[in-house]
Every structure is written in structure tokens, then in C-alpha cells.
């Protein structure tokens, strides 16, 4: 009895709870909005398009670059792409996306250019410092040098190194 009276008095003092349009409820922390990419951190591995449940992300390698595309109309906002991205290149907007009138209006694309191999000039997906750190520990001069090469030149360089006597330089 007193409980309900207290509740009623509280409601009376509080005033209306309705939000006057166009007022908005602030988005909660960690809201998963549209996916965005930082092309500088992308390793062109294609894991995001592989794990995406609804094919919202597609990726294709062509002419020395990686073409990344995202269609929000297909997205389930599950966050799997962000979780699995080894380069931490993907993140999600902290607010809800706006409505649109033409399909594909919110689509996002990015082109990740491949740097040329310093030995043979072949375009090759680049490897970020951050990823080298994750895979091999703190990068030193040798790992940095090796990872700038394309896969073929890297193999050749390592094979040459193994032919040298122990401790010798390639």
C-alpha cells in the first residue's frame, strides 16, 4: 500500500517520461553500428569476408590491390568481422545508421594498395608493424627487411641464408 503510494508520488514528481520528438536516447556504450575500415592497417587477408555470416563484406584481389566492399543492408551487426580481423583494421561506428531510400546508399568501399617488392617490383600485400609484433615478437631490422619482400624473394633470401655456414651473412 505504502509502496504503491510512494511510487505514485515519485511518478508525479518526475513528470512525463516520453521523449519529445526529435529527442534521442543516447546510444549505449559499445553499440555496433556500421563497419568501417582503416586501409592502412588492413593485411588483405580476406578473413572478414570469410567470417561474415551474411556476405555483407566482400573482398577481391585485383591488379596489385585489395578491393574491400561493405553493404550495410546485408549486415546483421554481429561484430564477427571486427573480432576476427588480425590487423585490427575494422571497427564499428558507435551510433545507429540513418535510414535511406535507395538500396546500396550506405555502402562503403576501400582499396588497399600493395607496395612493390624492393627486389623484383612485384606488388605484394604489406605487413604492418603491429602484426609483425603479434606474430614474431618485437620487430627488429632483419624481420622488417624480410617482410618488405614478396613471398618469392623472401623464400630465396632465406634459402640463401641457410646455404651460408653458421653465423654467416647471406
Amino acid at each position: 500500500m505504502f509502496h504503491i503510494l510512494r511510487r505514485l508520488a515519485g511518478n508525479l514528481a518526475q513528470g512525463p517520461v516520453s521523449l519529445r520528438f526529435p529527442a534521442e536516447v543516447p546510444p549505449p556504450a559499445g553499440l555496433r553500428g556500421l563497419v568501417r575500415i582503416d586501409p592502412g592497417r588492413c593485411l588483405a587477408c580476406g578473413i572478414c569476408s570469410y567470417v561474415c555470416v551474411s556476405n555483407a563484406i566482400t573482398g577481391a584481389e585485383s591488379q596489385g590491390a585489395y578491393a574491400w566492399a561493405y553493404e550495410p543492408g546485408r549486415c546483421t551487426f554481429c561484430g564477427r568481422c571486427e573480432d576476427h580481423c588480425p590487423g585490427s583494421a575494422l571497427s564499428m561506428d558507435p551510433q545507429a545508421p540513418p535510414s535511406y531510400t535507395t538500396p546500396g546508399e550506405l555502402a562503403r568501399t576501400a582499396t588497399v594498395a600493395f607496395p612493390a617488392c624492393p627486389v623484383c617490383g612485384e606488388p605484394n600485400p604489406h605487413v604492418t608493424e603491429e602484426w609483425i609484433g603479434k606474430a614474431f615478437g618485437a620487430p627488429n631490422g632483419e624481420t622488417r627487411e624480410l617482410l618488405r619482400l614478396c613471398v618469392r624473394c623472401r623464400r630465396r633470401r632465406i634459402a640463401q641464408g641457410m646455404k651460408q655456414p653458421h653465423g654467416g651473412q647471406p
Partner: protein
Amino acid sequence: MGVLEPILLRLVDRARRKSAWLFHFNAGACNGCDIELVACLTPRYDVEQLGIRLEGSPRHADILCVTGPVTRTTREALRTIHAQLPDPKVVVAIGSCPATANVFAGSPVIDGPVDRIIPVDLFIPGCPPRPNAVVQGIAEAIELLVAKGVAQ
């Protein structure tokens, strides 16, 4: 009608802007989007402050809200209901499912997305969209409805 005609047209225009009625059709949705649409009717979001009323009959409605990817069994119902709405009408697709069939794309029992069956005027993205986004979208849909009424 003579001199009364412009006055009557203004009245109809105002009625559309101030009291658009809404019909909700679930074309095989997982219920996520439907729950968010119901949340819009609660006192907190209160979509009725825009003059909206959730109407039980498509013949009295102005806005058709579709949720879900359109399953084989709902396709004909969707077509019939769309035909039953009087002109001008606005179709709003709520969520990723009606826009592209979402994770259900490619399933043999899905005939969607919605714009393969009926024309869609506005898409509200999300899976499901937030109630705020739905209220904003419905406000935009009312503007589209008024513009269609003027064009008619």
C-alpha cells in the same frame, strides 16, 4: 467543387501530415524487428505523438511497415495487402531482412527481399534497428507520404 477545392486539399494534406496510420506486416521476421516496433509505441518513445496509429486493417492505413525477408508463404499476402492500401501509400522496410534478405539470402523458402515483390520507399537499417531509428524513419516516411499526396 470550385472555391472549396483548395481548402479541402489543404485539409487533406494536413490530415496526412498529422495523422498517418500505420499497418505492420511480418513477412517471416525473427520477431526482433517487430519487438522494436512495439517498443516505439511505449510511453518512452511514443510514436503516437507524431499522430501515428497502429491500424489493424490495411484499407485504413497510409504507411505499410514490412519486417522479415518475405518467405514463400507470405509473398502473396504481402502483395494483396499492398494492393489494399489506398493511394498515396508509403512502404517502409524495417531491418536488414526486408532490404536484402540478410542471413536468409539464398534459402529456397525465401522469395524476398521485399523490393522484388512490391516497391519500397524507405529502408531503416539495423538488425534490429533501435526504436529511435524506427521513430526517425517513420517521421521521414510521413514526409514522403505528404510529398506523394501533393504529387497526386
